[in-house]
């Protein structure tokens, strides 16, 4: 059995998600028919849960040039440390820094906004590049906004301790979004997105366990994933303005992919301005998924299947998130360069309950270890300024 030196949970899937989220950040922030405001945001973020701590910062700046052009740039960094359950049971604790830079351009012509951008991400053993483009059009008296988007990504996967190992993975996304004003108080949206991945999609460090004659009753071998994956997601969301100046929002998303994962996400939120300068938020999110076709907590013997995974991300689980946010707004008395600023704090508590991922830190007969649960705290503190 090899001895991986890295936390398998902190590898590829996180980065793929990071870049997808960044594409959303810089790629679709523009509304059709009007360019986004000039603003700067500086975020400090902290995730702590399951023995892992991830801290970092994100700086986002957006500036209009003339009446038709807007530039946006983002610099994101985080640092991972600690020992997750994967590290405790399979690997060695470690520290790692990750960086990402992105640049985007929005061009407004009439009622149409064209957006393009590029994202570059790097880690010691991973490199990712993503290019994206989208077009948004306001229609029907500006009550409807239709957006088409596409992105293409190229990943290079390496492995620490194996300098000759290099693998590629390609990503392609297509999306269509519709935002519709239904009444003077109700805004709704519908989104559909297809994601395609091809190449080396597994984690070079993560392993599956199988029953063996080892004194523990099991041994490890490397995961084996299919080389292609296609997923489709459809979501609907709505936001309603309440007569005492508050907003209620809800959303639902259905996801299905060729690895056999079916997932449901439901969210509910409430936003309430108060005391002249404050805005408070409360939100709840429920998520559940079934497991991938080739996932198992314990395989019967070595090489028992062509494809094998024991990744928590591909396991069946339920997740509940509860969060609160507070934002304090400040406006200068004299109207000058700075229009307004906000100081923001957001806290979220996440709870994961896995249906078939066992906690191997507990000594028990093989296959009857307790099911793993995870609690995490997510803190965001950020400053925003509008110019």
């Amino acid at each position, binding site marked *: 059995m090899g001895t991986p030196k890295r936390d398998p949970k902190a590898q590829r899937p996180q980065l793929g998600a990071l870049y997808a989220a960044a594409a959303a950040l810089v790629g679709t922030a523009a509304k059709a028919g009007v360019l986004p405001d000039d603003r700067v945001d500086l975020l400090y973020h902290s995730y702590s849960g399951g023995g892992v701590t991830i801290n970092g910062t994100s700086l986002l700046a957006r500036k209009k040039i003339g009446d038709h052009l807007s530039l946006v740039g983002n610099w994101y960094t985080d640092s991972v440390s600690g020992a997750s359950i994967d590290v405790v049971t399979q690997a060695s604790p470690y520290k790692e820094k990750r960086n990402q830079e992105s640049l985007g351009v929005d061009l407004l012509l009439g009622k149409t906004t064209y957006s393009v951008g590029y994202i570059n991400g790097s880690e010691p053993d991973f490199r990712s590049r993503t290019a994206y483009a989208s077009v948004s059009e306001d229609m029907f008296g500006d009550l409807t906004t239709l957006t088409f988007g596409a992105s293409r990504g190229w990943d290079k996967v390496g492995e620490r301790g194996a300098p000759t190992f290099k693998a590629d993975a390609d990503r392609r996304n297509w999306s269509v979004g519709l935002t519709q004003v239904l009444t*003077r108080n109700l805004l709704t949206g519908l989104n559909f997105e297809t994601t395609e991945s091809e190449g080396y999609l597994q984690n070079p460090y993560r392993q599956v366990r199988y029953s063996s004659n080892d004194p523990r009753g099991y041994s490890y071998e490397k995961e084996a994933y299919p080389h292609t994956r296609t*997923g489709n997601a459809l979501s609907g969301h709505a936001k309603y303005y309440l007569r005492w100046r508050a907003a209620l929002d809800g959303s639902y998303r259905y*996801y299905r992919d060729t690895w056999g994962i079916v997932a449901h996400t439901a969210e509910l939120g409430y936003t309430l301005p108060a005391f002249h300068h404050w805005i408070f938020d409360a939100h709840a999110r429920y998520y559940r998924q079934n497991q991938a076709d080739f996932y198992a907590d314990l395989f019967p013997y070595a090489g028992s299947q062509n494809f094998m995974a024991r990744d928590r991300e591909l396991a069946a689980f339920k997740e509940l998130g509860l969060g609160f946010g507070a934002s304090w707004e400040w406006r200068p008395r004299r109207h000058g360069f700075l229009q307004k600023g906000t100081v923001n704090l957001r806290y979220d508590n996440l709870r*994961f309950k896995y249906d078939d991922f066992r906690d191997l830190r507990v000594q028990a007969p093989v296959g009857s270890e307790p099911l793993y649960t995870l609690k995490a705290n997510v803190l965001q503190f950020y400053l925003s300024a509008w110019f």
Partner: protein
Amino acid sequence: MPRLRTVLLIAPLLGGLLAGCSPIEPWVKPYEREHLADPIMAFERDPVSGAYFEHVHESREGARGATGTVGGGCGCN
């Protein structure tokens, strides 16, 4: 009688098509969009926070995409 039935069937279809050619009147007038233009009605008020939180979820879940960041805007400004 068959001719009358045909006319009765086709007329509404033709009417619908002709109505489709006329411009659609916005049923929420620009001066009625004050509530929609309120910052609390933005689907994503702070993109830097929204993108980070999307990352937190996607890195731990199998599902991804269609999170509502595409599109946006109500033409209220």
